[in-house]
């Protein structure tokens, strides 16, 4: 668990409660499954494997519910991507939910902005299970009573869905206040203002933690922000479970769902269960400044990957992760079966900069690394040249009466001088249309990172640099 300001680290999950309170409301919270959403990958074969991995993660989610014998599965929106959902996936989802329904586990799905509950949406036309399944598609808060196997009520879920993709209303304010002694859980797909990384997502049902706290619910199962995090400051525990599996290189780290236990009284406990069989990682190459050639670079990247994989294994050492396709959970097998999507960002000083700046050599190196690390579960290695340059001593040239010294001075001035920036801006930019002056300035300044070293690289002769 983490504070509201920091994303939850991939800490070792707590062990499953050996003996949860008998009347505790236990459920699995997931969100942003995004079935049939595109995986950002250029390789067709790898993308197909990622697609399969997405389904496998969802299957593990169902297995987790069955294994843990929870009362409910709460899906906080964006179960799938509305326009891209294939019928095979639809059948697959219905099959999995039917399994849960048959097992007596209630499934509550709130519609998100990607799987809206409008009458034209796919969710409204799917043949959902007829028992123990609730689709919350509209704005009106809908209450679902969760019962145990013996028929006793263990909790209440109050949720709202989205009928439209661009829903900018604060629907958190529409939720009724909690009542009674049965634990009440809110289910909402919204952007909480205090969430980390919320700026990367559209302002769907924007709200604040205060809005959530005002309801008096014991737990808020949130969706929409893909970064897993929780908020607990002076209010109910509210969590973003994050995506079930990463879809983009930025969505690094472990992904999965939260196993939540809400007792009638006492603290709410959550456990993160990693369910994704594919990890996206962005590696930083250590000692880049001392790497002299591509073979050394290859070795360093391998080393960086093994370190990252070892750290991941240690994180999951005690994790009781569900196995694929209903097999008994086995953490070691899960880790061993982990697949990796690696992105290596190369920036900074490096003696092999000349080779790393060549796209063909970089692609060749990426292919070699992919082939070498494939036995270790690596599906793809992508090398990004993000401003790598050969070693350049900048300080000794600053203030010097030569062009390089003056170039450094101009670059320093560009950081603060809008007029100079506008005068030196290229007439046409490939990455910015330039209609918005402020956006153009911001874009240009984003290009200045490390550009002083690049200037040294082009102005200083290599042999004497």
């Amino acid at each position, binding site marked *: 668990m983490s504070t509201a300001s920091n994303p939850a680290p991939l800490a070792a999950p707590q062990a499953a409660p050996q003996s949860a309170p008998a009347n505790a409301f236990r459920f699995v919270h997931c969100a942003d499954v995004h079935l049939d959403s*595109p995986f950002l990958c*250029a390789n067709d074969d790898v993308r197909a494997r990622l697609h399969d991995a997405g389904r496998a993660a969802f299957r593990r989610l169902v297995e987790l519910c069955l294994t843990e014998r929870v009362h409910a599965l709460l899906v906080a929106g964006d179960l799938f991507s509305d*326009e*891209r959902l294939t019928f095979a996936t639809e059948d697959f989802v219905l099959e999995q939910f039917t399994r849960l329904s048959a097992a007596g586990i209630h499934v509550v799905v709130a519609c998100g902005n990607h799987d809206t509950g409008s009458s034209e949406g796919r969710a409204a036309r799917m043949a959902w299970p007829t028992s123990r399944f609730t689709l919350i598609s509209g704005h009106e808060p809908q209450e679902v009573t969760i019962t145990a196997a013996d028929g006793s009520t263990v909790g209440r879920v109050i949720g709202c869905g989205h009928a439209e993709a661009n829903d900018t209303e604060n629907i958190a304010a529409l939720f009724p206040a909690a009542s009674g002694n049965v634990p009440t859980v809110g289910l909402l797909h919204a952007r909480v203002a205090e969430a980390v990384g919320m700026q990367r997502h559209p302002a769907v049902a924007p709200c604040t933690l205060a809005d959530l706290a005002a309801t008096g619910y014991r737990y808020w199962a949130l969706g929409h922000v893909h970064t897993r995090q929780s908020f607990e400051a002076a209010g109910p525990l509210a969590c973003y479970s994050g995506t079930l599996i990463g879809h983009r290189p930025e969505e690094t780290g472990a992904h999965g769902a939260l196993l939540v236990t809400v007792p009638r009284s006492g603290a709410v406990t959550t456990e993160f269960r990693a369910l994704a069989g594919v990890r996206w990682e962005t590696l930083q190459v250590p000692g880049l400044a001392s790497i002299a050639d591509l073979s050394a670079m290859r070795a360093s990247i391998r080393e960086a990957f093994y370190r990252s994989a070892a750290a991941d294994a240690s994180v999951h050492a005690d994790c009781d992760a569900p196995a694929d396709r209903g097999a008994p959970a086995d953490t070691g097998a899960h880790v061993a079966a982990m697949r990796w999507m690696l992105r290596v960002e190369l920036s900074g000083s490096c003696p092999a900069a000349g080779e790393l700046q060549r796209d063909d050599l970089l692609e060749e190196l990426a292919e070699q690394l992919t082939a070498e690390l494939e036995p270790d579960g690596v599906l793809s290695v992508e090398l990004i040249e993000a401003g790598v340059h050969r070693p350049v001593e900048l300080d000794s040239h600053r203030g010097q*009466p030569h062009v390089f010294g*003056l170039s450094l001075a101009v670059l320093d001035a560009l950081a603060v001088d809008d007029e100079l920036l506008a005068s030196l801006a290229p007439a046409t930019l*490939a990455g910015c249309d330039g209609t918005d002056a402020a956006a153009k300035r911001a874009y240009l300044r984003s290009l200045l990172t490390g550009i002083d070293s690049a200037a040294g690289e082009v*102005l200083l*002769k290599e042999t004497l640099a």
Partner: protein
Amino acid sequence: MRLDRFEIETFGALENFRGENLAGYPVLVLLGDNEAGKSTFLEFLATMLYGFAPADRAAHPYAPWSGAPLSGRAGFTLADGSSVAVTRRLRHTPEGALSVTGIASGDAVAQDNDAGNATAACSAERSIGNRPLDCVGPVTRAHFDSFHALRLSGLAGLDEAAWKAVEERLLGGCHLPALNTAREATAGLDARAAELWRSTPRGNTRHRRLSVNLRRLQRERAGAAVRQRRQLLLRELLAGKAWHIAGTQEQLQEMRSRLQRAERLLPVLRGLQEIEVLRKQSAQRLAVDDLPENSATHLTTLRATVKEQRATEARLDGDIANHERRATLSLQDTSILGVEQEIRALVGEAAVHNQDLVHINDLDRARDAQEALFAERAAQVFSVRLDGSQRETLSRLGMAELAARVKLWEDARRLPELAQDEVRQAKEAVHVCELDFEAIPNIDAEKKLRAREVLLRELQGREDVLNALKKDIEASKAPNAKKDKPKGAGRRLLAPIGLFAAAGALLASLLTGGSTSWAMLGPVAAALVVAGVVVLRRKPVAVALMPDEARAKAQGDECTKLRTQLGLHEFETVESQLGPSQQALAHVAARPELERRLVSARQRVEDCVKRVSVKIAERDKAHASVTQHLQVLPIAPSRLEQPGQDLFNDIEELRGVLREMTRLLGEREAVARRAREREARGGRLAESLEMSLPGNAMDSATLWLDRLQTALSAKRRAEESSKALPGLRENFREATERRALSEQELGLFEKRLSQLDFEGKSPEAGLRWLEQARTWLKDADAMERALHEQFPDWKERGDEARTALAAGETLDLSTEQRVALVRNIEQTAAGLATLCEEQAALQVERAQLSAQRSLCDVDGALAALAEQLQTLARRHDRLALLAAVVREADLRYRELYQPPVLKAASAHLSAITGERWERVEVERTAEAGAPRLFVKRADLSQPVEAGQPLSRGLREQLQFALRLALADQMDGAQPLPLVLDDVLVNWDASRSQQGVAMLKALGARRQVVVLTCHAGLAEALASRAGAHVLKLPAPAAVTGNPSARTEAKTPAKPARKPQPNAS
């Protein structure tokens, strides 16, 4: 800062080399031969100021090969009077020590002191490692190498490209060797950016290649979206189909159940009902069956008998009438039989008539062929198609006369050509004569030839005498020398005889005029006369007294004299010279004969020309004769041009064709006349019989014969009928009686049958009712048996059906109802099958669509590609921005530093050149980043670009001035020494003096160290600039040991890599 003292322990080739108290001299000169170590000293001085570069002894180019460390020390006097002593050593790692002496009030000393508070006079030594002295200020080692340590190689030997590079380095803002020029940098950045992206559609940029993929993926995405929508529609369609199929299956099941119950009970019920009805109907019609079993056959037999008897009666009546009619002949048959003989004759001639008609057709075709042949051949001869009169004219043309005229023309037409050949031959003969005539030499040449021939003859005679003398001398030397006397007497005896003979020959030659063979004897005779006179005039005593050798010598001299006069060499014989001369003179002798031949040839040419005209007239006359004879016919003009035998033959052939055509026409007329006569005869016969025939009479010959045969047959039949009539009339009476009895029996039986027909009282209907009643009974029995066999439980089913009917159930489906129900079932089943097929097709389509690339997958590829494009765009923009920054920095540099630099450089250049070149300018051309350096001469209005064709010396002086100016610009508080390594060697005497003066002036501001191998320059600097001269030790001598020689020759050359600032 001035170098005051130094001590080189080991540094390259220099060992234990030192100098002291140097700071007071404005100029310090190091004089040494090549390889003495001047450049080594420069490197030593830079090392003292900046430390070892490289800092690795193994890699240092000036590391002594003896293995000793690089080591030395130097003392500098600063501007404030204080001294700095530095000691540096490079063994394995660079070591350095610094001591400061004197009043250290300057910044330099303060900076050199680690504590930073050394303001008092002191002498403290501290380690500085390999760091530069702080007193060098902002001048880095690169600056020092560029502006303070000037080598000739840095100023001279620049080609155009190198010159421009120097300009850019000095004036373009990138003046340091360590820096690339701004133009190179921006060009490289622009090129890299252009490889990534361009705003214009030019070039195959990486962005464009990726954009192509992006567009392809976008198109693919559109297809995937269509498939996705189609899948949505398919889902709806499949759901509809499933609902439809379920309803249809239910409906089909209900109809099949109803039909099945009806089919089980209804046959039994209907069978029972039909049996009952049949038996009731039979009893109503036939209460008692007393009629024959085969009543129908009986009735039929009776009726057939009556009918047969009536037919026999009618046939007999008809036969009687027929025979009575056939016994009489018709009028037409009678008429035909009357002309039987004429008809038979006409039929006999029909075959001949047909043959004549065929023959007429053959004649017509043959005539047409001849006509076509005539037209073809006539087109080759005549200019127009011949009409009848012209053909008649052709037939009557006199061919014998034509043949004679053609023969005459054939004979005359080649005569002009033969005459022309004779003209050519005559002209060729004239030409040959003219050539021979031209070969005759003129009078002067003839005289020369004759004079030369006389000399040649004389020479020939003298050489013969000389040869004889030589033989005599040889003979006299022999033992029988006495025989010489008779020979000499004989020779004297023969001389008068030869003299007279020669005189005779000469006389004969003159008398014949030189035109005959005597002319050839003329020169010979003259020579003999001369020789004879000479012989006779010799006195015997003198001859006897003159030795043969002296005579031979005199003859030899004469021969030599003559050969010289004739221009003959010793190897040329007289005979070889006489031949051409005699030949030319022979031409002269033949001149009259040649003149006669030429006149005769020309006369013959004129005769031949006249004969040609005559022959042409004869030919034209013959041609006109032929043309006149043929003018009655339209002969083609081309054929009349050469009216030869071929024309005659063609006309003769055409006349033959005309004759053949006339013959064919006559024969055809004869045959046609015979045919017309036969046809007229047949026409008259038909007219007499008043018959109308389809064609002419001869074509209807067979019809005549058929009519005749018919008439003969009718005659025979009339005779036969007359004989048969009495018998036929008796048979007719008996048949009438038998028919009456049979009709009575038939009437009684038909009345009985009519009683069974209640309505119409018809015997046939009664018979049908009898059969029907009997059939009803049989059918009822058969149905009962069949019902039992088909449904053993028919009685139970019958009871069940009656019970159901009593209950109001509709079992009794009519046939229409049943058919409609069955058809409905079949239609419903077919509809169901169609629905299932459609469902399967939709499922197949859905499976196919699902198997194709999904929208999610395409979107993933699109997103990845879009990210690549974005990354690429950022890289481009970053490069473009960096290029703009470098350009801006370059511009700023020029604005900051160029004006004072150029001003100072102008002053230096003016001083060096004695104010001949007064100003240095920089002008930016239209091409950004490519400034050009100009120098202005005092007497010119426009500056000149500092490149070719300016002299090398001037360019070096310009660069020297520029570097001095840049050094002034770069210096900090302590002006560093200026080291000049033989930079004045290309300067002329005048400018060298100016340079020495300038160095003297410069030495007042900063110390100048001149490295030179020229003693004169050293002396000039010493005498005129107050320089102190240090002599470098001479290089080691070459020894026999190769290794020692190499070490001695190049002790200080870079062994492993070039000097850092060698350029």
